[in-house]
């Protein structure tokens, strides 16, 4: 089965100790994907309330459906400028 590609940025990459990983799951929501991610990288958990997520390059909410082959990005508070 094709995996779900997860990309991590900034402080989230720091906390997880990696910039990308692959999760195997089907028929899950973004919230459920977060649970899997937090189990794999417990140090990410305290950041939960500060994070935003993107699915295939667009901001997405917790109830968004995630399919194998999707790209999910974990986005800490942006600080450009």
């Amino acid at each position: 089965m094709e995996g779900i590609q997860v990309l991590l940025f900034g402080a989230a990459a720091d906390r997880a100790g990696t910039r990308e990983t692959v999760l195997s799951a089907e028929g899950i929501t973004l919230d459920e994907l977060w649970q899997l991610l937090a189990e794999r990288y417990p140090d990410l958990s305290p950041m939960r309330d500060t994070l935003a997520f993107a699915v295939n390059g667009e901001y997405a909410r917790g109830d968004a459906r995630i399919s194998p082959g999707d790209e999910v990005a974990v986005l800490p508070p942006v600080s450009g400028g």
Partner: protein
Amino acid sequence: MFAIFEEPIDVGRLISAAQRPDCGAIFTFVGTTRIDESEGASVEYLEYEAYRPMADRKLEEIGAEIKRRWGVCEVSIVHRIGRVGLGEASVAIVVASPRRGPAFEASRYAIERIKEIVPIWKREVWSDGYVWVGSQVGTRERASLP
């Protein structure tokens, strides 16, 4: 022009490119990296990273919002990534409009929007560690973890 790149930003070239006979005002906003000091430590440089191509697309979206809302002639937004030395430009916004009002307002809007929706992150590298701005995560002792 909407772009994200590692090279220094050529602000003069952006301004020249925005000059048009039907526009009487060009407003330029340049964000530069600032020296910060606290308790004997200081910032040595900044490092930016972006989620691409989403960040590129968000810059274009901001440009489209501005054109719709203010009817300006030209909008350029350029953001640097990678290592940026102190006092260097990290972001430049150039807006041209027939009269000055819209260019002023639109460029203010652009920088505020960048700070809201464009997936770019800034890491301050201090003499005693680093900190991710916005998350306050890092290796500095005084950086408070959430």
